[in-house]
């Protein structure tokens, strides 16, 4: 097949999208403080585009709300993501996109931890190590080409954030 290399995973499973978060009366109320919760973090990352499909990470079930942990008091956010296939070469890029999106969207007080769901990827440890290494993430973002690719993933429907 011409017109670009053959995709690694041409016919992936598709999952349903969750709707927009419902606005509650509390959201309108000035005096109620809303804590940052799992759903809010999930809303941030679910619309990230997959690098090779015109689908969001949520539709490919790469990220799930149950795999997001937030501790607002302790300033910690943990995200586990599940590559669609165990030898997915895009895993690092997906992880990096999630990390960048969270870095840009969360207050600085949070410590952000992104890693692969245990037992779902062939080279899990290597990817996790790369993603946990601050220096390497920073270096990766200095690379203009890589940054371009990451921005492509994040560009998606900006309105749904």
């Amino acid at each position, binding site marked *: *097949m011409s017109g670009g290399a053959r995709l690694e995973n041409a*016919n*992936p499973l598709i999952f349903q999208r969750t709707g927009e978060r419902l*606005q509650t009366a509390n959201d309108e109320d*000035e005096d109620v403080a809303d804590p940052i919760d799992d759903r809010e973090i999930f809303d941030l990352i679910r619309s990230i585009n997959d690098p090779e499909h*015109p689908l969001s990470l949520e539709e490919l079930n790469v990220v799930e709300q149950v795999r997001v942990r937030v501790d607002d008091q302790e300033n910690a956010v943990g995200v586990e993501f599940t590559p669609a296939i165990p030898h997915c070469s895009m895993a690092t890029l997906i992880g990096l996109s999630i990390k960048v999106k969270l870095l840009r969207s969360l*207050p600085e007080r949070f410590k952000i931890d992104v890693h692969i769901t245990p037992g779902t990827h062939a080279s899990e440890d290597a990817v996790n190590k790369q993603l946990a290494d601050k220096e390497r993430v920073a270096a990766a973002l200095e690379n203009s080409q890589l940054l371009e690719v990451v921005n492509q993933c994040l560009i998606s429907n900006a309105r749904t*954030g």
Partner: protein
Amino acid sequence: MAADSALLLGLVEEFVLGQQDRKAVDTATGKLKAGQFTILQLVEALGLHLTSSQPQTRGRGVQLLSNVLQECYGDLTEREVKVLIVFYENRLKDHYVITPHVIQGLKALTKCSVLPPGSAVSILKSLFQDIHVQSLMLAERSCVYNILIQLMESRESELKGLGADFVFGFVQSVDGERDPRNLLLAFHIARKIVHEGYDLGKFTEELFEVTSCYFPIDFSPPANDPHGITQEELVLALRVVLTGTPRFAEFLLPLIIEKLDSDVQSAKLDSLQTLTACASVYEHKDLAQFLPGLWASLRREVFQTASERVESAGLAAVGTLTACLSRSVLNSDSEDSLNVFLELVLKDCQHHLCEPDLKLVWPSAKLLQATSTASYRASHRVAAAVLPSLIEQYNSRTQCAQRRTLLEVLQGFVHPVTSSEEDESVLLDFRQSLCSIVFSALSESNADLQITSMRLLTALGQQTGLLLESDVELAVDHLTRLILEEGDPKVSLAVVECAGALARLHPAAFISKMVPRLKEEIFSGGLRSKAVRQRCVAALAAVSSRPSLVQESTPVLLQVLTSAHTGTGAFSLEEVISVCHSLQKIAEQAQDTEETGGVFHDVIPRLLGLALQAALQGSSGHCSPILEETVLSAMVPIISTTCARLQSRLAGQTASLAVSLFLDGDVSFLPENAFPTQIQLLKVSQSQMVCLLMGCVCWLPRTVEVPQMDRLLLELEELSCTCDHPLSYTSAAKCYAGLVNKSPAGEVLDSLIDRTLKRISTELDSASSPVRTQAFTLLLWVSKALLLRYHPLSTALTDKLFSLLSDPELGWLAADGFSLLMSDSPDVLNRGSHADVRIMYRQRFFTENSAKLVEGFNAAVQEKKSGYLKALSHIVNNLPRQVQLTELPALLPLLLEALSCPDQGVQVSTLSCLQPVLLDPPSALITQLEVLVGRTLALTTSPTMKVRIASLRCIHALSRFPEHEIMPFRARVLRALAAPLDDHKRVVRSEAAVARNEW
């Protein structure tokens, strides 16, 4: 005569020597046209120069002749033309410096109406023989093309006589053309050749090559392009050529297949669109050979595309291909190429439909649906192949998500088949199983399944013969059950939609089954929860589109109102209001017939009666919900919507009844006639009912005359200036304004307004007056009424409003009043109510008054300035975008000032006015970027949530400014946005996140 020839010689001399240019030509032309000498004399005068041994001199000579010819080719005789053509054809062989002028002259000659027969052919022959077009300059090439076009238009038959030589000549002269302007001409010629049946001979491939080498066109016009040629134009011009004849098929189709492999999006898109275009011209035998290749490419585009445009173009191509193949008449010896193609499609797509979890289900389904929409035969074939397996799968799968996908795919197949007109529906064979699937899905407990199945049901209902009487009844039963039992808002919404669609087609079943059941449920008392009753009422409103249904459903709703009034039904206030909304909805959607008009004509008296009863009782102690202001306000739109749509006879009747009720207390037309005889509705105690009067008389068509107008206006003015009940005096003012807006212009109206204005002024001027607010309200509404119809007196009133801006008490109200003045109000003075609304009244008001506003602002003391800013931001906010953009530079300083104004209302209003402008920033804004960024960033920490959100949206919009402009601010903005990221409100945080990600 001798003087003339001497003059001529002089002119020629001067021109040839280069001393004179335009003037010589003009003089010569003028004289020639006036008949003072002939072209022959001019040639004689030129004689020496035309035979000069210097090419430059010969060139100048020919140039003069050509220029003159261009002006006066219409005056030549056939003999002159003949001679000139022979001369020019000869000159083509001459020195290259002369050629441009020769071509110019030829071009002028081809425009002659007296072109002798045979000369077209000879001109072309010498053109093709003696010059090499591509070595000429741009303008000359264009000239040659124009000659061709000219001759093709005037001497078509002669050119066709040339046979394939003409095509060959054209191919030779175009080969290598690069300028887009000339290409457009060349494509135009090629199109004529292809479409008007010129003999292509053995040069078909050459002609194709010489044009197709530009395909797909990639052209980006230079910035500030003076010629205004777009890529789009070129693409379309070329497409018409390429798809013009089936004889190109064998060359074009491989080219398309090749270009589909391209990585460039626009190339893919262009190829697909060209394919679509040519498939509608070609026949099956042109396509047959390339089907496998085409299919492989199309499949790839749809299966793996990243862009929706490519996908939809691909689907369209598949559709037209199928349609083209279906059109073909079969010979006994050829195989059915439609079958071959469908075989290919089915082979590749069918198995994906068996995996409803995977991504490729959707593209496959879309491809199959595209083929089945294309023709009856195709839909037959596809349906027979696909539907049984889908149905079987649905019955065997157990997971809801999979079943839902299957249902959605099925729905896609039900829709397209509508295109088969006279043939009976392809789906008839599957009717039974489709219906049973729908009903089984409806009885599932999964909300998504229910919603999808209702969509499928609606789709089935749209087609004749797919739902039998019994099926409709069963469906209505299911829908009724869902209304009563399902609490999920998404499901109820779907039920209401589905019921509405089906009720339009099958009203009988709804009358006999659903309406009685819902009615019973509504009145069953406290057993069911409020939510159920709410849904019942909404459903009743949704199904009432046919007159027969309206007749059944409105009495039920009115009965609710009555029982709420008497207190027997225990209906809460919200329920009463939602009943009112439902009635309004029915009034809006009911088809405009005599019958429904009649029904609603009866509704008005009943509503008035109810309100009146409630008002009378209200004074005696018992409190009916109808008395509540919210309920009354909800009743107004019912009356107004109805009145606006009444036919004029009924409308006139209604108007006179309502007026006599309100003025004279004439209650005879109200039902349950148990009212005291002398009531005065426009006096204080029952005055709030005046809003009902407003709904009635202000919404009538303008042709209907309101009786006792003068008295009515007087009473209304009195009420609005004296009453101290806000709803009453506002409604009276609105009603007054509505009537004034519609009354015919003239002295009566002017004196009326004068009188009112005087009264208002006296009230407003006395600072101690207790009714200043009332007077202001009346002023506001009357100004709006007059402003809308461009009445000359409106300026006096609006000036009054401007002067109120500095009023200590009413300043704020006045500032807010401008928002009312500029926006559409829902309940009166809008187009729906047949009011006299001129177009662009906002712009007009703005241009007339912005200077006053700015002046007032500058003159005002510091504390008063904010009122002006507020008024300004209201006015600018309501202007159309086009005007905003042009006016912005002048107003920008003021608006920026408004951003730093402490009032939060002003901040929100200004920010929301700036935000849309920022999306497409004018250059004036860019120069102010520094201030803009500073002010908006400061507002992101405002204590009010709305201000924070609005300012974050503006910052988001700022991120789309040109890269080099915002670069200096990036670090600062990113740092400042870190704070709202940690806001305690989630809504603010999400806006901040969006904005920061963009930056």
